[in-house]
């Protein structure tokens, strides 16, 4: 079955020439939630804006059900990170839904209002909220309105860019569950962008790890999070808080004064290590070939792909040498 959303070799440069996206390819099938994880500056949000057509791509293409997407349109809708900036403060909740509905359905006002009420119910909001302005809603309610607005346009794909990172914790899980349900019930393809691995684990079918504008690991959620293979995915997983205590290391004074691993930000290295793997400076397992040769994407198991020299042909000999 061909993918609903197919991104092929997408490339985008910042105005200063640095690569924000470097040959990104990914598939999202109907009814599937794909999580894209990575740190800020890794290109996640740029990818979202290019995929939905808000920002033109420099290279590559975006296909929706096999058709090339050339500019922003209703087939791909976005749910933004900041629920306080994504709704217009001067308009009511209903107004936000009626416009896209009117453009899509071309029905009399009463029918549109009924449809808006159905949408509100579908995202778990009371119909009485329709007349309210965004400032009278909580963060979680606003994000649900934003999801309803995306649905109103009748999309096939929804890009959710960090939809829960600015929400209070007690409302987060509800919004995540809603996204999962929309994928299941409406057969939407959802690309869920997050830096929170636990959120990804909660709802995603597949997980992609992104670093310095490239997808470095991809596979089924259980595979990527259960048996992380790229050193960066492993670093992300090891850093996520799991409730275990962080204890002071039995440290020598020298460790206290040593610069940190992340001291060199990923951005600085994206430029410096353009020749080889961009992760090389932070990589605990770097091989002699890493600074000079870019790693290719390799399939290491069924639906598990890694872009790392550790998994290339002959990597074991390199590992043995180093």
């Amino acid at each position: 079955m061909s993918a609903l959303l197919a991104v092929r070799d997408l490339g985008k440069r910042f105005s200063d020439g640095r690569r924000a996206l470097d040959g990104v390819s990914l598939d999202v099938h109907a009814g599937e939630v794909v999580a894209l994880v990575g740190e800020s500056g890794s290109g996640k949000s740029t990818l979202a804006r290019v995929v939905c057509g808000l920002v033109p791509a420099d290279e590559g293409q975006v296909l929706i059900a096999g058709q090339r997407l050339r500019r922003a349109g209703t087939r791909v809708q976005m749910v933004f990170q900041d629920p306080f900036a994504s709704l217009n403060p001067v308009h009511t909740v209903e107004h936000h839904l009626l416009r896209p509905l009117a453009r899509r359905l071309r029905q009399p006002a009463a029918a549109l209002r009924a449809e808006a009420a159905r949408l509100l119910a579908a995202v778990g909001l009371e119909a009485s909220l329709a007349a309210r302005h965004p400032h009278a809603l909580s963060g979680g309610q606003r994000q649900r309105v934003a999801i309803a607005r995306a649905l109103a346009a009748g999309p096939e794909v929804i890009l959710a860019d960090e939809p829960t990172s600015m929400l209070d914790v007690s409302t987060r899980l509800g919004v995540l569950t809603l996204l999962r349900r929309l994928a299941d019930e409406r057969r939407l393809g959802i690309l869920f962008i997050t830096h929170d691995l636990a959120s990804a684990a909660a709802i995603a079918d597949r997980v992609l790890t992104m670093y310095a504008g490239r997808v470095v690991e991809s596979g089924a959620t259980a595979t990527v999070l259960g048996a992380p293979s790229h050193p960066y995915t492993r670093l992300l997983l090891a850093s996520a808080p799991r409730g275990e205590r962080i204890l002071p290391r039995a440290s020598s004074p020298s460790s206290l004064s040593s610069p940190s691993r992340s001291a060199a930000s990923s951005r600085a290295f994206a430029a410096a290590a353009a020749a080889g793997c961009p992760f090389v400076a932070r990589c605990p397992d770097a091989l002699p070939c890493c600074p000079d040769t870019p790693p290719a994407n390799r399939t290491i198991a069924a639906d598990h792909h890694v872009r790392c020299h550790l998994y290339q042909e002959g990597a074991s000999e390199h590992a043995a040498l180093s």
Partner: protein
Amino acid sequence: MRSRFAAILGDRRAVVGALLLGGFAVLALFGPLFVGDAGAAVDVPLSPPSWRHLLGTTGQGQDVLAQTVVGARLTLGIGLVVGLLVTLFGVILGVGAGYAGGLIDDAASVTTNVFLVIPGLPLAIVIGAYLPPGPVRLGIVLTLAGWAWCARVFRAETLSLRAKDFVAAARLAGEPHWRIIAVEILPNMASLVAASFIGTTIYAIGAQVGLEFLGLGDLGAVTWGTNLYWASNDSALLTGAWWTFVPTGLCVALVGFALTLLSFALDEVTNPRLRRRPRRGPVVRATSRPTPPSATEALVSVRELTVRYAGSELPVVDHVSFDISAGEIFGLAGESGSGKSTIGHALLRLLPADAEIDGELRVAGADVTALEGEALRRWRWRDAAVVFQSAMSALNPVITVGEQFVDTLAAHGQGSRAAARARAVELLAMVGVDGRLVDAWPHQLSGGMRQRVGLALALALEPRLLVLDEPTTALDVVVQREILERLVELQAKRGFAILFITHDLPLLTSVATRIGILRDGHLVELAPTEQLCRAPRHAYTRLLLSSFPRLPPVAAKRLQVLP
């Protein structure tokens, strides 16, 4: 929108301003019908006020009352029209350029800036020389001299609105550009447009009267400006004929006053900082009140702390008590609006002036609520320091990292410049920042680096209490982890106490020894971390603990090398 309108109407200044303006409008529209011919000489020149001529006569023997009333029509009319035109051009050019961006924006900006640097009065005089006299000339001259400022303000506002996500959402919904401007952007600028209109109307009336007074208007017309011109021309000041200029001058001043009142009222209603805080939802009381902490030798002792803001009945923090012992990491968790940051701010006496604090706050034996002025300034940072979520706003953007340390140390009378710099390098190394970055500017650092610098600055005077308010919330997990590890290490080594405030309970359980759960200003649960995780007593704590998605355990296999 409607509530703002009601708020404007409820403002006394707005009512006075509107009534005054309404009075002048009636005067300008209907007054001339009752006062007769203003231009005709009706009596002896310069006769003082009398029953025949209530405001006396001018140097040409015209009735001053008639001249003032008739003059209102043209003066206010031109003022209003110019105010509208300037605002309209400003909106079209500013919003158009800001929204279109690219070359259009560049061209419009250059034009605007050229008009802005040319002084208005000479420009008006030069343009005026090429046009036939009359009210139209004045209108054109004033509009040309005034539109640039408006356009610039509207362009800046459009640029910030265009970047908002709701505009992106409208584009994704397939809305045409004109509709995005009309429906999404302009309504958000309504108060700015209204304020600009009032401002430019004041400008138009002032500049018009000024030009005419200088004799640059149409001297045949009866306006407030020409009234003043003729009064001056007829040596009214020298002869003491005050009645020829005081009425007109008073009218100009009153109109300006009325418009300014309206502008103030509008500003107050639309400026978020001057608006009242929204009411908070219903309060849920603790089912079991936390037992009051024992009054042993605690470093920090908070007793029955209650904070409320002026104008709100509900306290933001309601009778909260807890202790922090020396060298302890104490966590406060809660969602937005729970009052957790207010407690942190109260401990350092950083609350805004309209906050009322009740209860007892003691840090290292000092009564924090009693500290004032110089004593407070010296105590803060020396005994208790703070790191906020956004270090960028905590660091001064116009001085280097090293200078921030020099300033901080100098403010507490510690050492020379050179010594402070050396100490800065030492402190930076302590938090894992390369000492060479001592000469870097804050904007050159990544978010994690800035947060480390903030931490080093907070530790510069070796405080006994460190308040951390969401110190790693804006950071990535990897950076967050590194900073937390460093923090725990430093804390174990130096023995300062930490009040760690965050909404992230799993994060808190990994660093804090005891945790307090806040909800709507109440401390609903306070327990050692293990106990809180194992057997939370309050339903809200259980809700918070269950709200976080959990990661599955990682497989033990560390590296998978192809055969």
